[in-house]
Structure formats: structure tokens, C-alpha cells
């Protein structure tokens, strides 16, 4: 049993069979996290460096916990505290770290394609923890795991991704994964935040009316407004965004069926989602975070194991 790739750079390169192996393995790791000793010795001969060139709370802690639960040694690198501020290049940074015999690199970078560039130049296996506005594969995997856990399967399920689709790596990774696993996908939000040819490119539905999107879907995955990635003002104000596209309790109560509400975090309460939704029983936001550790354990285990030396 082996994944078809050496790295996890994006969902785009994964086969449905790979995704199934990752999710099934994550199920077993979730059980490990319920044990009195929440650790297995599988990666005790492995050193992982977490290279975060961008801010993160969830993802960084989640990866670090996953690595420690697998008994790996972990090194954390935050760009702001490093020689990157003295002008060191990405490749120099990584090669310096690799000369200290690091086996796996988990990287988040603001430039799309940074991990792909790195994969061409270094021998270690790379896990993309988010690259620019390209992909965030482990987020999509944990989202899929959470949906599968609640609804039993992904096939035939209707998932609406709501918000700033244009600048969201979470959206893209989710679209790739959900389509590969046979789900139906809709993107919803203001027209200025939805890429023009997304329907043709990925065979997803487009909806500009939030209520219609919520009526259609089984699961609503709500994205944060990516203020730090926008170069122009793409909607009038946060308040107006909230009035038209904020997920509110009154909207959910008016639907004919119960839907699940997801969010990759961090939440802007009162913007894309209201507090009484985020904290309601529709929301599986905290389960997503819990599942994130199990899913990342599965990815680390599957990439570190098997014929690693032969790559």
C-alpha cells in the first residue's frame, strides 16, 4: 500500500485511491488520539521541519501535534524570527536546514508554487501546508474526512463553498477533492469574488444568492474574506458582505432540512458567519480542527513510510 506521489503538493496530483487510503488511515489515527497514551512510535526515526513563511495558528499547531504523536522530532521555523529577514533565499534556507539531516518538510508560503519549486531542488518529501492562492491539500482532506464522518460518504453529496473563492486555496483544494470523490460542488458568493470561468474549468455550479445555495446543499463550507490577499476593493464593506452573504441563524432555520456548517478558520465573527451559527449544533468547526491532527498524522505516516529510500 503506497500513495502514488512522493510529496503532497496538491490535491490536483492525487488519485481517488490515494484520497481513500489517507482518509481510511486517518480513521485509525483518530482512534489513537482517544487512547491514554496518544502516541505511536511509527516516525521515531524521522525529523520534520515546519517551515512557515506565513502566519498560522491552526495548521502549524496541528502539524506539530501530528508529528509529535507519531514520535517524530520536530523543528519549527517562523520566517519573521529567521535569517529570511536578513535576505536569505528560500532555497538557501531549506538547504541549510536539510544539511542538518531533516527528512520531511512541511511548508506554508505566500507564493503559489513555492513547494513545487522546492520539490525540484531538494531530496526530502514535501507537504504543502498552503501556497499562496494555489492549494491547501491537508485542509481539503480534513474537510472531506469531517463530511465523511458525519454523512457516511462523499459520493453524491452536495457541498456549497461560500465566500472569497477567487483568493482561496482552501476552495481550490476542496473543489479538486470533492469532484474526484464524486460529490457535487457549488461555489457561492458575490460575483466579484468568483473567478469568471470556474464553471467551465471545474464543472461546478455557481450561485450568487446565498439562500438558494443553502437550500441546495447538504454541507456549507464557509470561507473567510481574505483581506490580506486582495489588491483591490472587491465589495463595498464588511457590513454589506455580512448582510448579503453572512451565514445567519435565521437563514438556517428557514431551510427545509438540517445542513452541516464548516469553516476552515480563523472565523471573522459577524462577517462571513454569525456567532450563533458558529457555536450552534449545525457547526462542525471544532470537529474539523480535531480531525485535522488525525488527517495530518495519516499524511505524514504515508509519506514517510514505504519505499522512501528508493525515491
Amino acid at each position, binding site marked *: 500500500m503506497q500513495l502514488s506521489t512522493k510529496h503532497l503538493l496538491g490535491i490536483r496530483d492525487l488519485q481517488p485511491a490515494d484520497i481513500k487510503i489517507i482518509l*481510511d488511515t486517518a480513521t485509525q489515527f483518530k482512534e489513537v488520539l482517544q487512547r*491514554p497514551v496518544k502516541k505511536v*512510535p511509527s516516525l521515531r526515526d524521522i525529523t520534520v521541519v515546519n517551515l512557515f513563511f506565513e502566519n498560522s495558528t491552526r495548521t502549524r499547531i496541528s502539524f506539530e501535534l501530528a508529528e509529535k504523536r507519531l514520535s517524530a522530532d520536530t523543528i519549527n521555523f517562523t520566517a519573521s524570527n529567521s535569517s529570511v529577514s536578513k535576505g536569505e533565499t528560500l532555497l538557501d534556507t531549506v538547504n541549510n536546514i536539510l544539511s542538518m539531516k531533516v527528512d520531511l518538510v512541511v511548508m506554508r508560503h505566500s507564493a503559489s508554487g513555492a513547494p513545487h519549486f522546492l520539490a525540484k531542488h531538494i531530496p526530502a518529501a514535501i507537504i504543502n501546508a498552503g501556497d499562496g492562492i494555489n492549494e491547501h491539500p491537508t485542509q481539503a482532506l480534513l474537510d472531506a474526512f469531517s463530511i465523511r464522518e458525519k454523512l457516511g460518504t462523499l459520493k453524491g453529496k452536495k457541498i456549497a463553498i461560500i465566500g472569497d473563492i477567487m483568493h482561496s486555496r482552501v476552495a481550490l483544494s476542496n473543489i479538486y477533492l470533492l469532484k474526484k470523490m464524486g460529490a457535487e460542488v457549488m461555489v457561492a458568493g458575490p460575483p466579484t469574488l468568483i473567478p469568471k470561468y470556474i464553471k467551465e474549468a471545474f464543472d461546478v455550479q455557481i450561485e450568487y444568492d446565498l439562500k438558494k445555495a443553502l437550500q441546495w446543499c447538504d454541507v456549507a463550507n464557509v470561507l473567510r474574506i481574505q483581506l490580506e490577499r486582495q489588491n483591490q476593493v472587491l465589495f463595498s464593506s464588511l457590513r454589506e458582505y455580512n448582510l448579503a452573504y453572512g451565514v445567519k441563524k435565521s437563514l438556517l432555520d428557514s431551510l427545509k432540512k438540517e445542513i452541516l456548517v464548516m469553516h476552515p478558520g480563523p472565523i471573522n465573527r459577524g462577517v462571513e458567519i454569525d456567532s450563533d451559527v458558529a457555536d450552534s449544533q449545525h457547526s462542525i468547526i471544532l470537529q474539523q480542527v480535531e480531525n485535522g491532527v488525525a488527517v495530518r498524522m495519516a499524511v505524514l505516516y504515508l509519506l514517510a513510510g514505504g519505499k522512501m529510500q528508493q525515491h
Partner: protein
Amino acid sequence: MTTILTEQQLELTIQRLCHQILEHHLHMENTVLIGLQPRGVYVSDRIAAQLKKQLGEEKVQYGKLDITFYRDDIRKELHVANQTDIPFSIEGKKVILIDDVLYTGRTIRAALDALLDYGRPAKVELCILIDRKSSRELPIQPDYAGKSIDSLISQKVKVLWKEKDGKEEVILL
């Protein structure tokens, strides 16, 4: 291909193992059964069922353990992990590990490591259906053995079960 145990012999062997276990653990008060995934559970299911029939459902504590994450060959090959379900504490208990074939002993070594992450048992005993006694790579021996055989490394012992293969039999290939 040689038949090591026919369906009838297999059933009698499992019955005998149950009686041997009861001889040493009279009422199973402080004793628990743990079957190893993926193939040991076929043996442990039957042993647990028989002991439950004899002593009563609530007297027999039975769990399943998957040791995939404790294997020592992870860098060579990855195996599919199955479910672990141990719905009780093993602290201070006598644990009987149950597996189908004892070959090199590495699976049992991994099982001991996994078990010790669940607590500190008072004692661990090993119950094995088929003991390939001449091929050990670690100093591990069974406390209860169904049948001991001599075998070459090139040979394989296959245990067939009704629910998986349609019949019950142990063969040497």
C-alpha cells in the same frame, strides 16, 4: 500443499485452547482477551464466543488490537491499518493475546509495545493457533498453542475461515 488442520480438527483445537485458558483462568475474573488484527480476530472471535457461552456474556472482556503503527518494517512497506477497539482498562489485568500464526515473533513484539501504551497489565500470555516453531527471529513463545509445526521460510501457512473464505481449514503451501 498439505492440510495441517481439517475443519473438524480446527474446531476441536479451538475448543481445547478454550479449556486450557479456563484451566489457568478459572472464572476469567481479572482476565481479558485481545485478538490481533487482521487475522487473529477470527480465532479470538471464536474463543470469546465459546467462553461467553460457558461463563456468561458479561464475564468475558474481549477487545481487538491493530499493531500496524508499531511495526518495525514501516520504512520498507506500509500495511493497511484496521480497527482497534479495547473498551476496557487493561491496568492490573491478565491479558491473553490471541493470534492465528506465530512465525518470526515480530508481530507479537509490536503487540506488546502497543499493549503497554494502554496501561500496565499484571501479566500477558500468548495464545496461538499455529506455532511455526523453528522460524523465530525474536525470543517469544506461546503459552497456549493449537498445533506446533516445522516449516521452511519459503512455505506459507494459510488459515481459511467460513466468513472470509467460505470454509474452515489450515493449510501449508
